[in-house]
């Protein structure tokens, strides 16, 4: 191949990269569950076969148990989570006035523990925090996502979107390169999917456990050989916020099952 042809080929490759598919139109959005095998779908939809429900059960016990020096249980203020928390997860991450920035569901639970129960915050990915988050999010099962309706969130959605489109890591990939441009393809036998966080916290068979969206994002970042954001980092929450905003209108599936 002569140098001129190499330049032409290189220019075409660059053009192909620039001519990225735009954002996925609303009608073409698909939940991660639609990419799964029927066996995994059946596991998710049967409440007695879905291992994520074990965390929801644990969450109910924690919800009704007193914690912290205030000696209050979640249920003392919020009563039955299945009723009072309906639709809440569909609005998160949400804007917290005191912090003047968005917080996700895990952070909201911990803020509630610190501010109202005078208890210590639970560690990220600890069984108790996942259990409480699963219980709260489960109450919104089937509710359409409406994250981002609050206008105060607009600048954070914009920075989250920038991060989503930002190439990073040794493989120099942005989230969008896989989840907007190539979601209909497979990566080493696994479906790439559109990356809509409709079912978190979810039970991943690979993890043999429930896990948060932040855990999933950290795994994705390691996959592209980038430095993962820390748990609870503002960058992480902005990315979560953008992803939830991107999935607005889709029903919450928590606790979902994924391979």
């Amino acid at each position, binding site marked *: 191949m002569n140098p001129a042809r190499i330049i032409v080929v290189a220019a075409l490759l660059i053009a192909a990269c620039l001519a990225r598919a735009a954002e996925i139109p609303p009608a073409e959005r698909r939940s991660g569950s639609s990419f799964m095998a029927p066996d995994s779908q059946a596991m998710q939809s*049967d*409440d*007695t*076969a879905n*291992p994520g*429900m*074990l965390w929801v*059960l*644990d969450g109910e*016990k924690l919800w009704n148990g007193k914690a912290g020096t205030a000696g209050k249980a979640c249920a003392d203020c919020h009563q039955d989570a299945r009723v009072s928390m309906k639709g809440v997860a569909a609005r998160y991450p949400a804007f917290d006035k005191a912090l003047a920035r968005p917080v996700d569901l895990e952070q909201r639970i911990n803020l509630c523990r610190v501010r109202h129960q005078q208890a210590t915050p639970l560690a990220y990915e600890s*069984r108790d925090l996942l*259990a409480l988050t699963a219980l709260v999010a489960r109450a919104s099962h089937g509710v359409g996502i409406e994250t981002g309706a609050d206008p105060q969130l607009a600048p954070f959605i914009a920075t989250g979107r920038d991060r989503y489109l930002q190439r990073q890591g040794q493989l120099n990939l942005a989230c969008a390169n896989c989840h907007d441009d190539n979601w209909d393809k497979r990566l080493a036998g696994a479906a790439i999917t559109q990356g809509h966080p409709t079912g978190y916290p979810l039970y991943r*068979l690979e993890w*043999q*456990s429930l896990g948060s969206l932040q855990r999933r994002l950290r795994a994705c970042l390691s996959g592209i050989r980038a430095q993962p954001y820390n748990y609870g980092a503002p960058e992480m929450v902005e990315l979560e916020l953008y992803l939830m905003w991107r999935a607005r209108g889709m029903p919450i599936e928590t606790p979902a099952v994924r391979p």
Partner: protein
Amino acid sequence: MASALINVPKKARRGEIIEIKTLMSHVMETGYRHTAEGEVIPRDIITGFSCRYNGVEIFRADLFPAFSANPFITFFTVAQESGKFDFEWTGDKGFNDTASASIIVE
């Protein structure tokens, strides 16, 4: 915080074949994994499961390290009399948990 999810039909016809599904919360640590420091993580698994139908054992299973976490065990039996199913899981580190479910046979 061990907890179990049991699915037994509430009602069945006499002689009907019914499916029983059980899901038990457990880490099922194999004993073959190591920490970052190289220390073996000790085995911690459920080793036995049994189901009694009105006191009579109708199903028993031995479990081994290759089982996934939160083992899901399903089996079939014939609905004979109204009564109770008692489930029991036993395992390493003195693990023992029970659950029960009732059925009405018409």
